[in-house]
């Protein structure tokens, strides 16, 4: 007999797609899109205003990662899902094949025991945050669990689970 209960499904809330070239044409897109998506998905959270603020903060960092590391051919896609107190962001964007190793490494470092020490060291000494540090920030300050999906060599998908429902309440 199979006793394990099935994991509750993530419910899709919203999906946004745009040409990467258009996205990369203006840095403000990160701010606009994160604010808009945050407001859209937060309206039925316990505290919609604060949830949107928290979510926008995290999503903006992810969009900035794709802005700094993405390449212009193809489309950027962002889907937000929900499961209970958890929001899952799937952010796909075109990036050169040579960058995949970088993301694999950066994502794996968010789960290592020394993640907090690495983060503190970066805040303490780095002149500007790298994309790796931004992912560490999400893991530490937003309690995010980050993974990677690689379905094509020309793009990458960051999967970020954010337990914001619990944090905001």
């Amino acid at each position, binding site marked *: 007999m199979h006793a394990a209960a099935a994991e509750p499904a993530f419910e899709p809330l919203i999906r946004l797609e745009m040409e990467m070239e258009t996205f990369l044409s203006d840095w403000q897109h*990160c701010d606009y899109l994160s604010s808009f998506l945050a407001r859209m998905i937060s309206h039925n959270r316990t505290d*919609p*205003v*604060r949830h949107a*603020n928290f979510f926008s903060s995290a999503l903006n960092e992810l969009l*900035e990662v794709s802005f700094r590391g993405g390449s212009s051919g193809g489309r950027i896609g962002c889907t937000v899902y929900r499961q209970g107190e958890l929001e899952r962001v799937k952010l796909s964007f075109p990036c050169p094949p040579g960058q995949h190793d970088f993301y694999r490494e950066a994502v794996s470092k968010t789960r290592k025991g020394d993640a907090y020490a690495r983060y*503190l060291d970066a805040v303490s000494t780095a002149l500007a945050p790298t994309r790796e540090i*931004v992912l560490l*920030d999400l893991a530490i*300050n937003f309690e995010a669990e980050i993974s990677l999906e690689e379905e094509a060599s020309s793009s990458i998908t960051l999967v970020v689970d954010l337990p914001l429902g619990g944090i905001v309440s």
Partner: protein
Amino acid sequence: MNIATTLSTPHQAVYDPNSQEFSVAGVIRPRSVDEIAPSLSALRQAIEVARGVLYINVKRLVQMNNTAFHAFSRVILDACRSRSDIRFVVVTSSVVGWTERMFRHLSRIEPQVTVEVYDSKFYPGQSFVEDTSFIPILRTQTKMTWRHERAILPRHGMRPGIHMADICCGIGDFAVLVRKEFQPARIVALDHSRASLAYARNVAADFGIVDIEYSYGDASEMLLEDDQFDLVTCRHSLQIFNQPHVLLKELYRICKPGGRVYITNEKNSHCLGEPRSQSIQWTYNEVAKLFSHFEMDVELGPKSRRFLADAGFEDIRVESFMVTNLDGDPQDFADIITAWENVYAGEMAVKRGDPPEFIERFRQGFRDHIFAALHPKGYAGWPIWAASGRKPL
């Protein structure tokens, strides 16, 4: 010296030398550090002139990306290393949760940095008005004022389909009544009391109401965006806020151009009753003085016109109404006065250090007001001023 910087990006960095406080507010999401160079320079200058403790106020920081966080942190941490004589106190808000989470790391790196969460000292009377034992009487108060306000509100911009915000919503009962009577398209209800909001959410859940957006927030520094609402209501709150013009400025900010801000306030010294009018009048004059001691102006009602005009509103409308013992059950009126006696005489006067003989006379006026309310030929009143202004287009 005043160092003020306003950049093209919507954030402000200001140093106040009198309080040695460097404040950063708004949204700071630069692509590169260069974009915020003037603000970073302002912080460096503030550090140069500060002695002892420099406060870094991020209470009104709505968003800050990692680029900006690292840049500001860099300046603070470098100063810790070069200036052993200076301490930094970063003041975050309990409303914007991520700021405390991010800035607390600085204190792990440098012991010269401490992080404080600004919360309970929101305004001086907060502890009195957030007392959960007060909740039943707040419900009764709303029930009694609603009889008047349901007729008044349409003259101040209330109509079906609008987007509205009820700021300082307390236990949220006004929002529920408005939703039922006027069917606005959106209601945001904000308060700074977690206990009141929890109560409001429970009541809403019990009635199957899911479309009122209850939010925890500081009314003087809201996360709500500019120009959002057709009508912003703020009832009985300017009078218990030590800086009503600051609150009004925020109400103005979130109101749409052409929309209205509606406020209600009292003039407590005008509470009245017959018989025993003199005792009643003496006590309510003392109520006004007592609140004044705690930096609250419960005489604000008739000043509403001036406050609205000074805040930049136009088409200002002011009216008053009297809640009386003849509005429904006189016992409801009496229950309100009993609650006032318990808080004003039983807690606030005691906290002010008033002698027992004063408190006894103070209590007698409330008891006489109750006597008037319940007397078969008596009359007891509680006057309230309702006012609104339109935000210019």
